[in-house]
C-alpha cells in the first residue's frame, strides 16, 4: 500500500518545432538541404516541454497541477495516460487508470447517444456489462434521457459534453486524470461534476487534476504542483501553491506590461487607444491589486475627428472567460464631448470585490449619437488580484462577524472559543483556547459558525 499511485521521476519530454515531414516532398527537400549543409540542427528545432519534472502522488490523494498556458500541464497528463512517452525519466501509474483529457473523444456523430455510450465506455476501459449496469446512472447524470436514441451530431454542445463527462465519471478508476474539461457545460452541471469528483476522491480514487480554475482546484485537491516553463516551480499544500502561482503571475506582469499597441486598437479608425494604466491612491502605477484596494484607470485616446457623444465602456472577464463586470460611462448619462486630438479618461474604483486570480479587461468606445461602435478590443488587458492565495469563491466582500452566547454555564462553559488568524477565506476558525473571543479579521466566503459554547458577546469587526 505504500507504493505511490503515480510516480513521475525526473521526466523530460521534448517536442519538435515545425520540422515534421508530413509529405514525402518535405522530407526530400529537407534531405537535400541537409546534404547541402544548410540543414537546421536538431537542437534548434526542438524544445523541452518538460524538463526534469519529479513528483509522486500517494494512493487516494488529490493533486492539482496549475501553471500558465504552455507550462506543460497537459503534457504531464498525456505522459501519465501513456499517450506520450518521456524522452528521459520514467512514468508509472499503479492501478486502473482513466484519463479525461477531452470529453467525448471518440464520439461518432452518426451514432446515437446510446451507441456512443457503449463505444466511449469501451474506449475508457469499461466492459459491456459494466456499461449496461451503469447505463441509467450515466444517462440520468448527463440528463439526456429523451435524446438517448438521437445521433449525437444533433446534440447541443452542452449535451455532448455532459454525456462525455458522465461516461468518464462512471468509469470508477483507481487513478483519474482530468484535464480542464469542466469549462464546458452550464454552471449547474459543472458543480455536479465537481461533486462527483469529490466523491470519487473520498472513496479512495487518486486524482490528478489540471485546471486553470484555482477555486475548483483548491476545493478538491489538498496538494498542488505549480509548473512553469516545463519545470516544477512549487509543490505543496494547494493554498500555498496558489499563492506562489499568483505572485509568480504578478511578477510576470511587472516584467512585461500588456502590449497595448496591437492592430485592433483602432489604428486608422476614428479612435485609437494609446494607453491603459492602473494607479493606486498614491498615484503609483499598479502591477497587481490587493482585494479591497482602491484603484484608478487611465485611458489615453486619440480622436481623429470630433465625436459629440462619446461613451466609454470597460468590461472585465475572469480567466475562465465569464463576464464579471461592465462599467459604462453612458449609464449615468455621462457622455464625453471630444474634439479631435488626444484625451485622457479616468475611472475610479473604490475597490474590486473579487478574490484572487487573473482577470482581463477590454475597452469599448461608442459614438452614442450615431449608435456606432468605434473601438472594441479583445479581452487582453490583464489584471492580477493577489490575495496571497487565500480566496476560494469568486467574490471578496467586506463583512463582519459577531459572536453571542445565548445560554451560559455548564461545567464545560469555561472553554470559550477564540477566533483568530488572518482568516481570509473559508473557515476562519483557527483554534480553541480558553480566552474570550478576539477580533476576527476576515474576508471571503465564511466558515462554519462555532457551536454554541459559552463566552462573552463580542462584535467582530472585519478589516
Amino acid at each position, binding site marked *: 500500500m505504500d507504493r505511490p499511485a503515480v510516480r513521475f521521476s525526473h521526466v523530460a519530454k521534448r*517536442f*519538435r518545432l515545425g520540422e*515534421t*515531414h*508530413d*509529405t*514525402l*516532398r518535405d*522530407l526530400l527537400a529537407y534531405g537535400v538541404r541537409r546534404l547541402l549543409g544548410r540543414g537546421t540542427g536538431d537542437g534548434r528545432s526542438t524544445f523541452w516541454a518538460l524538463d526534469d519534472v519529479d513528483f509522486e502522488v500517494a494512493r487516494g490523494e488529490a493533486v492539482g497541477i496549475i501553471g500558465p498556458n504552455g507550462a506543460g500541464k497537459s503534457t504531464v497528463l*498525456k505522459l501519465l*495516460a*501513456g*499517450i*506520450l*512517452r518521456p524522452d528521459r525519466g*520514467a512514468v*508509472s*501509474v*499503479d*492501478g486502473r*487508470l482513466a*484519463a479525461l*483529457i*477531452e470529453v467525448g*473523444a*471518440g464520439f*461518432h456523430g*452518426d*451514432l446515437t447517444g446510446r*451507441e456512443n455510450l*457503449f*463505444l466511449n465506455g*469501451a*474506449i*475508457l*476501459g469499461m*466492459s*459491456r456489462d459494466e456499461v449496461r449496469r451503469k447505463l441509467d446512472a450515466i444517462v440520468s447524470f448527463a440528463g439526456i434521457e429523451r435524446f438517448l436514441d438521437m445521433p449525437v451530431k444533433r446534440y447541443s454542445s452542452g449535451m455532448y459534453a455532459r454525456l462525455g463527462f458522465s461516461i468518464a465519471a462512471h468509469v470508477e478508476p483507481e487513478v483519474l486524470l482530468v484535464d480542464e474539461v469542466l469549462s464546458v457545460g452550464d454552471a449547474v452541471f459543472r458543480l455536479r461534476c465537481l461533486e462527483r469528483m469529490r466523491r470519487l476522491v473520498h472513496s479512495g480514487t487518486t486524482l490528478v487534476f489540471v485546471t486553470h480554475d484555482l477555486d475548483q482546484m483548491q476545493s478538491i485537491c489538498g496538494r498542488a504542483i505549480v509548473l512553469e516553463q516545463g519545470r516544477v516551480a512549487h509543490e505543496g499544500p494547494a493554498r500555498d501553491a496558489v499563492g506562489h502561482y499568483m505572485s509568480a503571475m504578478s511578477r510576470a506582469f511587472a516584467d512585461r506590461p500588456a502590449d497595448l499597441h496591437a492592430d485592433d486598437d483602432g489604428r486608422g479608425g476614428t479612435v485609437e487607444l494609446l494607453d491603459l494604466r492602473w494607479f493606486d491612491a498614491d498615484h503609483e502605477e499598479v502591477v497587481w491589486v490587493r482585494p479591497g484596494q482602491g484603484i484608478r484607470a487611465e485611458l489615453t485616446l486619440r480622436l481623429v475627428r470630433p465625436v459629440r457623444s462619446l461613451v466609454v465602456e470597460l468590461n472585465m472577464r475572469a480567466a475562465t472567460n465569464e463576464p464579471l463586470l461592465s462599467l459604462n460611462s453612458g449609464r449615468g448619462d455621462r457622455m464625453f464631448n471630444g474634439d479631435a486630438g488626444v484625451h485622457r479618461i479616468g475611472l475610479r474604483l473604490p475597490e474590486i470585490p473579487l478574490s484572487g486570480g487573473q482577470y482581463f479587461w477590454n475597452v469599448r468606445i461608442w459614438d452614442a449619437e450615431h449608435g456606432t461602435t468605434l473601438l472594441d478590443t479583445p479581452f487582453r488587458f490583464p489584471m492580477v488580484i493577489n490575495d496571497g492565495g487565500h480566496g476560494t469563491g469568486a467574490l471578496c466582500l467586506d463583512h463582519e462577524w459577531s459572536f453571542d452566547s445565548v445560554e451560559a454555564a455548564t461545567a464545560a462553559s469555561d472553554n470559550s472559543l477564540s477566533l483568530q488568524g488572518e482568516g481570509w477565506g473559508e473557515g476562519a476558525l483557527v483554534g480553541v483556547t480558553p480566552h474570550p473571543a478576539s477580533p476576527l479579521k476576515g474576508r471571503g466566503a465564511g466558515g462554519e459558525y462555532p457551536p454554541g459554547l459559552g463566552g462573552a458577546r463580542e462584535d467582530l469587526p472585519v478589516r
Partner: protein
Amino acid sequence: MGHATFFSELPRLRALLPVLTWRDLRVRYKQSLLGIGWAVLLPVSMMLLFTFVFTRAIGGASAFGVRMPYPLYAFAGLVPWTFFSTSLGNCVNSLVANRNLVTKVYFPREVFPLSCVASALVDFAIALLVLIALIVYFHLRGDWTFTPTPALLFVPVVLLIQIALTVGLGMILAMANLFYRDVRQVFSIAIQLWMFVSAVVVPLPHDGSFWAKLFALNPLVPIISAYRDCILNGHGPDGGAFLYAAVVAILFLIFGWVGFRRASFRFAECI
C-alpha cells in the same frame, strides 16, 4: 503498470476490437438504403462488369485458360480480393481518421488497423454466401459440376494466411500514412495495379518469361488461387507456391506488428 507490454495489453485489445469493428460497420451502413446489402452488391457488380468485359467485349475467357463458367471464376477471385483491398484501403486511413482518439485517449493502437480488417471480414463472410449461391446456380444449370472434396477443409487455413498478410500490410500502411500522407495516394494507384497481377479476374501467364517470374513473387497469387482450387477445382493448393505465400504473410505480420508497436509511442506527437 509502467509501460504496457504487448501481453499486458492483449485483454484491452480483445475488449476493444469487437466494439470498434461494430462501430466501423455501423457507421459504414448507417444512412444508406441498402445497408449491409452493399457487401453483396459490390463484388457482384464487379463480377458482372468483368464478365461483360471478358465474354462480350474482349472475347472468350477460355482463351486465357479458364475452364469453368467465367462468372464463377471471377467471383471466386473477387471475394477474397475485395476483402484484401477493402481492408487495406481502410487501414491506410485508420490512424489519421481517428486522430482524436490517438491524441486524447490511450489504448493499444493496433486496434485501428485490426478493426478495419475485422469489419471487412464480415463483408467477406456475406459475399461468401453469394459465392455458394452462385455455385449452386451453375451446378443446377448443368454446364459445370460441383464436387465437394476434403480440400474444402483447407479454406480456413487459406483465410488465416490471407488475414496474416492483410494485417501485417495494414499496420505498415496505417503507420506509414500517419508519418507521410503521400502513402494514401500511392496506395490508391498501387492497389489497382495489384489486382491485375493477382489472378483475380484473369489467370497470369505461366510461360517462364521474366514477367511470369516476377508475378510469381506476389504472395497474393497463391492465396487467391488456393481459394479457387480448394472450393471450385476440388484439389488442394499448389504446395510450393502456397508455402511461399504463407511464409511471406507471416513475416509481414511479425515485422508489421513489431514495427507498429515500436512506432506507436510516437503516433500522438507526429499525427
